[in-house]
């Protein structure tokens, strides 16, 4: 059945309506909302700490490497774009292209922990460790917590990558692949909030 008002890239599966569909599967949305609640609480912690220590939060970003935060943002956004293309490809039943896009997303995503490693080394060498002040304590707690979630998401992408290479997914069966992409995009949105908190806001 065709849906003329729905773009080709948002074509639903055969067993669901064109509008109002639930992308991925129900389980992934439970996980996504748990992550949002968790990080919303951490963001409240950030603002409470900031309210009690305004000077530390005003001067804190100056000692962090903006280039590192910006590079991580660009990598995550581009990796997310690769997963959008992977979903587009599987809807065309092009499994080879799907796999290529997933591998590209994983490679770009792996840039995050690598940049983080060098950023932390630079920080520690310049006296910006977990005991350098409340701003940096919150910075390490929030960013490393996010890194843990990104690691899970990368494992998820690896899993769907392996299954794609084994021919598990097609234009009529890609819910798990879409669920992994949704989880990946969620870590992306969360980082878009964390980035200005520590590198831009004064």
């Amino acid at each position, binding site marked *: 059945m065709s849906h003329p008002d*729905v*773009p080709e*890239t*948002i074509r639903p599966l055969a067993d669901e309506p*064109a*509008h*109002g*569909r*639930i*992308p991925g599967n129900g389980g992934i*949305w439970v996980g996504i*909302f748990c992550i*949002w609640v968790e990080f*919303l609480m951490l*963001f*409240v912690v950030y*603002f*409470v700490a*900031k*309210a*009690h220590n*305004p000077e530390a939060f*005003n001067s804190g*970003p*100056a000692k962090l490497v*903006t*280039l590192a*935060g*910006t590079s991580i*943002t*660009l990598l995550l*956004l*581009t990796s*997310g*774009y690769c*997963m*959008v*293309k992977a979903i*587009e490809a599987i809807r065309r039943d092009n499994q080879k292209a799907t796999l290529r896009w997933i591998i590209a997303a994983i490679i770009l995503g792996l840039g995050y922990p690598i940049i983080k490693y060098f950023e932390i080394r630079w920080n520690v060498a310049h006296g910006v460790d977990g005991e350098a002040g409340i701003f940096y304590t919150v910075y390490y707690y929030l960013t490393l917590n996010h890194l843990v979630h990104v690691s899970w998401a990368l494992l998820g992408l690896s899993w769907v990558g392996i299954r794609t290479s084994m021919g598990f997914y097609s234009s009529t069966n890609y819910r798990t692949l879409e669920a992994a992409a*949704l989880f990946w*995009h*969620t870590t*992306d*949105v969360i980082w*878009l*909030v964390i*980035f*200005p908190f520590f*590198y*831009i*806001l*004064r």
Partner: protein
Amino acid sequence: MIKHAEKIWLTLIGLTLAGAWLAETGHAGWPLTLTVAALIGFKGMLIVDHYMEMRLANRRIRRALLIFISLVMLLVIIGYGWGDIFRQMTLLN
């Protein structure tokens, strides 16, 4: 012709670079706070609606995601303009 996904990606990259430029200028105050809140809201909505394809998907899920993003924007604004509220609410004595 640039396709839809590429347009969204380019917009997100452009906004990120604008944010990085803002960070380097070292500005502070209301203009920066409101710009950051707007950037979080706009970039968040672009990912939710276009990367996650929620524009035509289940309305309740989309609404819940947009509420989360709106709450973060609200926290940014209240945190700057009325941060003392957070401080008063969390005093231990």
